[in-house]
């Protein structure tokens, strides 16, 4: 279970570029829940994900994962509990190393690494059988460098790597955004399969409302660093793309009204 309470993060504090990316965000995700995070650009959805992953430390608030307070843990330490897939398909794999070596690195996620072989022969059978599931013919190419593969293939492998050892929490950061539609749907299919089979607790940031509607059991909508809407269970099931679009419009209109009102007040009093 992931518990986020009163999380705040401000970037470039005290400068003109100050951005309050997270404003007092609280969120609890139960075990086995698959949460989609939607939001406008700059709404703080990726920031929320990165705050949980430990890319930066939050200014205030608390993050607990399965009862452990991980608020002050560095990124690499949190990785022992958290699996991650990045937006950029090239971020999740080491291009100069072979497919096998990359997977073997993932097979040791969060575990101590010593002087044993990095890619032991005994691991080969498991590698092959698990890569075969991707249905991309990569099981015959374990020796070739991962940098030669397409973005879709690399993203599929990253997905496999992030869940090689069952993570307490899986973080997906718009992981299909950089792929062409066909590849994206293939990766989404795989995502769903891996999450259902492993019953993984998942937090997925997406900008595709279609994905949000069809995947997972909960939708969170963020705006200006805050969680504005939270749909669960039955409510979530009834939600359609059109409803989400309407909500987005509403949020945007509110913004505009705010600006107009501010201007009116300015004229009145300044």
């Amino acid at each position: 279970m992931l518990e986020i309470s009163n999380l705040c993060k401000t970037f470039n504090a005290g400068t003109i570029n100050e951005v309050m990316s997270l404003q007092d965000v609280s969120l609890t995700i139960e075990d086995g829940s698959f949460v989609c995070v939607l939001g406008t650009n700059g709404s703080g959805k990726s920031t929320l994900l990165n705050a949980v992953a430990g890319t930066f430390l939050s200014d205030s608030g608390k993050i607990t994962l399965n009862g452990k307070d991980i608020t002050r843990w560095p990124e690499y330490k949190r990785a022992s509990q958290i699996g991650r897939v990045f937006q950029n398909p090239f971020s999740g794999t080491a291009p100069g190393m072979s497919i096998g070596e990359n997977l073997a690195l993932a097979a040791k996620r969060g575990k101590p690494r010593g002087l044993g072989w990095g890619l032991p022969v005994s691991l080969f059978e498991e590698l092959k059988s698990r890569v075969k599931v991707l249905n991309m013919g990569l099981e015959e190419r374990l020796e070739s460098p991962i940098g030669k593969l397409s973005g879709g293939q690399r993203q599929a492998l990253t997905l496999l790597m992030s869940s090689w050892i069952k993570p307490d929490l899986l973080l997906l950061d718009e992981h299909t955004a950089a792929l062409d539609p066909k590849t994206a749907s293939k990766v989404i299919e795989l995502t769903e399969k891996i999450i259902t089979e492993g019953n993984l607790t998942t937090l997925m940031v997406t900008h595709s409302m279609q994905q949000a509607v069809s995947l997972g059991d909960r939708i969170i909508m963020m705006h200006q660093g805050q969680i504005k809407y939270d749909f669960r269970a039955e409510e979530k099931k009834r939600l359609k793309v059109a409803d989400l679009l309407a909500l987005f419009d509403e949020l945007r209109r509110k913004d505009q009204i705010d600006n107009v009102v501010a201007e009116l007040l300015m004229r009145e009093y300044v």
Partner: protein
Amino acid sequence: MTLLIGSITIGLVLALLALGIFISFRIFDFPDITAEGSFTFGAAITASLIVAGVNPVAATAMAFIGGLVAGSATGLIHTQFKINPLLSGILVMTALYSINLHVMGKSNMPLLSQLTLFTWIENFSFSVSGKEAMIDLLGWSVSVRDLWVLVSCLLMIVVLSLILFWFFRTNIGTAMRATGDNDQMIRALGVNTNVMIVFGVALSNGFIALSGSMLAQFQGFADVQMGIGMMVWGLASVIIGEALINEKKLGLLIAGAVIGAVLFRLLVAIALRWGMNPNDLKLITAGFVFLALVLPGFMKKTRKIKLVR
């Protein structure tokens, strides 16, 4: 022929330097200029210990440890204080200049009448085949002593290369390679990349200091200036190796660095023999590395233009 054998021997000694540069530059993508200081540091440590009567093996091992310490300093400055890699290296390199002078107590330390690793090899050779023994090698008359020195250096570099090859294929070694390849990815897999960087830069400088130590013993003196230009020298060796191998496989890259170091030393020896002014050596080396860095990109561009046409 004696010149050739001598050049190859020095090339093999400098292959250690190339391996060190290969670790920092290629595996960690860390432009580590500490090399210039740690090369001399290794030489200074070994020279002063040998003069103090310490066993040459222990003196050489201490040079390696000294290199580890120098490299860790650079790595820690970079990772803990977030100082740019190049600047971290420059700081430690500059500090090492003074330290080296303190270690030796003067700017140049002769080792000619001292007992070094090479005098051991010499003595061994003399006891096996006599003092003035010559051997016929492809029609050339070669001193057996020189040949023994060459073979010992070759043996040493082969063993160390194999150890390096093994190490970079262990769990921790692959994590180190991944750190240089994609640090974001390996952090997400639970590796403390800062520790990896410190460890890698330390290992790199250990090899470089070992190279300096061996060179001092071979040429019979340590000099506070001997590290200048060594980073570019090592880089030139690594680049030649890569051009020869033209493959990204770890084992081949390590072998390439060693072969590159020997070839580069031979090229320099030939150029000097043809009357190149020794003062121009560093200028030409730098120019060579510049071209080697620029040409691949340039060639890709022209090829693309051709394709477009």
